[in-house]
């Protein structure tokens, strides 16, 4: 799935606020590990070989560069332990509450979230038996700053860590461990005192533990193993598995037991059950071939799981005994449209577009209810502090008549020409044509502009001809702060040459000040309240129109045991829990 591979990445989230708060308050950090999982996450069987079938090659295996939701959890459950991590649980409250992993607790914060410290556990080791030290964590974080070598990963640290900005380049004055300019600034920002690591930030980061658990950017890295870009496909493990041989980008790799991993330092039940004797990442077969084999349940497919969604052409084969091996859950992603505010300046015209949008036809053209669920906000319901956006509640099949009236009210000449830009694929082409039907009926004259690999280049250009643009997004960690601000804050997105991720060039002082309020907030409650308000502003301005939430419809082999998808694993199969019959 092109859409979720390239851009839409990340972790997922809690429906209820309270859970997140307990973990992040600071003093009570240790508690969450005592929480029983208290849910029905099934238990599998130990031994055997589990196959994980993947279509598109994984672009980065280096912890500081991984940025795909599925891969983040796959690697935290197997090879890359984190300071804190999300536990195995189907209950979002539990699964989105970080628990201690390599750290002794979930961290303590001072100065309203501007300083965070963690203490590394004793007895935790790398795969060669050496202990994991505070310096390894510090070195790992330093790699994020080598933006000319370690590319493609999450770079939140660049704007948060207390390091001055270089006037000339607009980037932090520290440029990573390789060139080492400004090393002293970095050494001040992150300090090690024995086993305790302390991070100093420029601004409060109340949800920092969520960010640590949701991404691998804060992972430890051993300096003597670092070869920069050459390390992109190297795995130096500290988890229950290690790489056997090398990682082949086009074929995948096999993970086997890591004998230097000590389960006593971990919380196997809640984080890593590590049931299979080995795990094979099998990369390259098309989604259709994967499902042909899973449906036939032949050979290695019997012990296989996959993160590819069932293609609609295969739905009718998933019945009877095959259906017993399927799983249908909402994903943590939302697809949406943005009107281009440079061209669609009249709020009435944008309102008409919203009213005429037939999200239901879009959903049906994409495969129907097993493919997508309706969305009522750009924020996924799994995010902390989610609420329906009142601007988008109600029926979603579009009302061309009402839209026509709005266009008339706006006094624009009809048919009103608009260009809809979206990333072309066999399914997306049909879905776009479905939207065109009601838009045309409402008095728009729609040109479909389906693009190939130039998509993001085109829609980021300020002078684009697009009037309506498709987007897809998921939270990087379960907080709306990783959803609406990166997409609609004009100050961080709009420059002379690029619209950044604010594809519609939306600019609102009201929205921006709410974002400031959220970022200055010292507590999660205040942050969440500000973000909820910000979403309402977006809805009133029709800054976006939500389309749907992709459904994760998976099939797995008959010998797979304890198949579970958790919010911690972005609703992909959770490798921490799954086993196979041997």
């Amino acid at each position, binding site marked *: 799935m092109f859409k979720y591979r390239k*851009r839409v*990445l990340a972790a997922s989230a809690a429906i209820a606020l309270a859970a997140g708060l307990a973990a992040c308050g600071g003093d009570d950090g240790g508690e969450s590990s005592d929480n029983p999982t208290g849910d029905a996450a099934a238990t599998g069987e130990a031994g055997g070989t589990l196959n994980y079938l993947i279509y598109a*090659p994984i*672009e980065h295996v280096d912890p500081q560069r991984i*940025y795909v939701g599925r891969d983040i959890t796959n690697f935290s459950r197997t090879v890359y332990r984190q300071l804190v991590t999300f536990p195995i649980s189907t209950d979002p409250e539990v699964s989105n509450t970080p628990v201690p992993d390599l750290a002794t607790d979930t961290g303590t914060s001072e100065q309203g979230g501007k300083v965070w410290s963690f203490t590394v556990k004793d007895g935790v080791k790398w795969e060669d038996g050496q202990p994991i030290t505070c310096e390894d964590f510090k070195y790992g974080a330093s790699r994020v700053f080598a*933006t*000319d*070598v370690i*590319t*493609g*990963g*999450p*770079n*939140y640290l660049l704007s948060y860590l207390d390091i001055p900005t270089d006037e000339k*380049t*607009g*980037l932090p004055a520290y440029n990573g*461990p*390789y*060139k*080492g300019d400004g090393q002293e600034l970095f050494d001040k920002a992150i300090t090690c005192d024995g086993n305790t690591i302390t991070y100093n930030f420029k601004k409060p980061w109340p949800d920092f533990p969520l960010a640590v658990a949701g991404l691998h950017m804060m992972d430890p890295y051993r300096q003597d193993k*670092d*070869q*920069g*870009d*050459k390390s*992109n*496909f190297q795995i130096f493990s500290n988890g229950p598995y290690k790489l056997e041989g090398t990682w082949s*980008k*086009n*074929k995948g790799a096999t993970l086997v037991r890591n004998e230097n991993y000590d389960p006593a330092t971990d919380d196997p039940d809640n984080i890593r059950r590590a049931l299979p004797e080995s795990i094979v990442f099998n990369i*390259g*077969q*098309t989604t259709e*071939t994967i499902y*042909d*084999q899973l449906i*036939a349940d*032949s*050979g290695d497919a019997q012990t296989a799981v996959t993160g590819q969604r069932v293609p609609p052409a295969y739905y009718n084969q998933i019945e009877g005994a095959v259906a017993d091996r399927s799983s249908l859950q909402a994903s943590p992603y939302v697809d949406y449209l943005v009107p281009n505010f440079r061209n669609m300046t009249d709020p009435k015209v944008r309102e008409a577009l919203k009213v005429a949008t037939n999200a239901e036809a879009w959903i049906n053209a994409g495969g129907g209810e097993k493919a997508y669920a309706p969305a009522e906000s750009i924020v996924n319901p799994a995010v902390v502090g989610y609420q329906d956006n009142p601007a988008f509640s109600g029926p979603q099949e579009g009302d061309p008549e009402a839209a026509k009236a709005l266009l008339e009210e706006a006094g624009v000449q009809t048919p009103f020409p608009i260009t809809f830009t979206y990333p072309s694929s066999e399914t997306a082409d049909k879905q776009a044509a479905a939207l065109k039907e009601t838009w045309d009926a409402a008095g728009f004259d729609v040109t479909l502009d389906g693009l190939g*690999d*130039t998509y*993001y*280049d*085109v829609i*980021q250009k300020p002078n684009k001809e697009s009037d309506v643009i498709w987007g897809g997004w998921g939270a990087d960690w379960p907080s709306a702060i990783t959803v609406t601000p*990166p997409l609609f804050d004009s100050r*961080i997105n709009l*420059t002379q*040459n*690029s619209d*950044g*991720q604010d594809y519609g060039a939306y600019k609102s002082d009201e929205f921006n000040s709410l974002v400031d309020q959220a970022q200055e907030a010292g507590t999660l409650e205040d942050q969440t309240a500000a973000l909820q308000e910000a979403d309402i502003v977006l809805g009133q301005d029709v800054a976006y129109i939500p389309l749907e939430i992709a459904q994760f419809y998976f099939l797995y082999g008959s010998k797979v045991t304890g198949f579970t998808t958790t919010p911690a694993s972005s609703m992909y199969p959770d490798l921490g829990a799954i086993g196979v019959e041997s």
Partner: protein
Amino acid sequence: MYAYVVRRLFVGVIMLIAMSLVTFVLFFASPIDPARYACGKNCSPELREQTRNALGYDKPVIVQWTDFLKGIVQGRDYPDDPELRAAAPELVTHCPAPCFGYSVVNTKTVNEEIKEAFPVSLSISVAAVVLWLFFGVLLGVMAAIRRGTIVDRGIVAAALVLYAFPSFFIGLFLLKFIAIKWELVDVPVYTTIAEGGIGGWLSSLLLPAVTLAMLYMAGYVRMTRAFVLESMTEDYVRTARAKGLRQNKVLVKHTMRAALTPLVTLIGLDFAGLMGGAIITETVFNYNGLGKLAYDANTTNDLPTIIGLVLLLGTFVILANIIVDMLYAVIDPRVRVG
């Protein structure tokens, strides 16, 4: 003869240099920014600028091109930034001459990529050539001998029909039905001789080779048939038959020998073209050969890999042309090169 070969090779090298320049200029004009792809999500304009510099895409196209040519002659070190290489020698990847470049997307030199992919493409191509040559010539001769009969018509029509279905349709059909649904053969996964022995290697090549062979076989059936028919009226064949030679012997001894020249030309050119033309087959079956490498490089805007492949495949075609001309001289005494 040697002078001729040297001259042809010289012209070939000039042509490759021209090709590389054309390719560079064309790709440089592309609206796709490779730095955006490398930089990833949440990439600010400043970061993208830095990524572009780090990848060396900020230099003028002519400098990039001469760097590339220098790399082919002398080899190259990556990353491109000399300051970074000096500060952190453990990061350096040396790409020995002839260096085709470094793929940021795959974190490998293009030479390594080609070295991995080449045996796969070569295996599929050779297997396909053997299949279509054997069946193409056999069926062509059979059709010619029974010309005008239902056998003739049937063979020609069947070959044509197989050719006329789009090759990805044939490939997917074989994969879905023969391998997965009816389980007549294993789902093809490329196996090297080291992994699966000769048998495993051959059986892993079966479906892709059949897919490719179907595409080419029709042409060979029809050519062989036409040639056999035509040669039957030639004087030397009539003489041979008048001498009382059996038809089969005439066929083998006289007709087939005469057919060899055009066959060699065709095979040479088709084979060279196949190395780059198996994009669809390799994509359908997910075999990581040169064609799949090319397809993937295209979807990820991996310019160094694309440029390296264009030149490599161009070299194949140029060499094949030279070899075919050489073979002419050997097979057909009437032809003199020079």
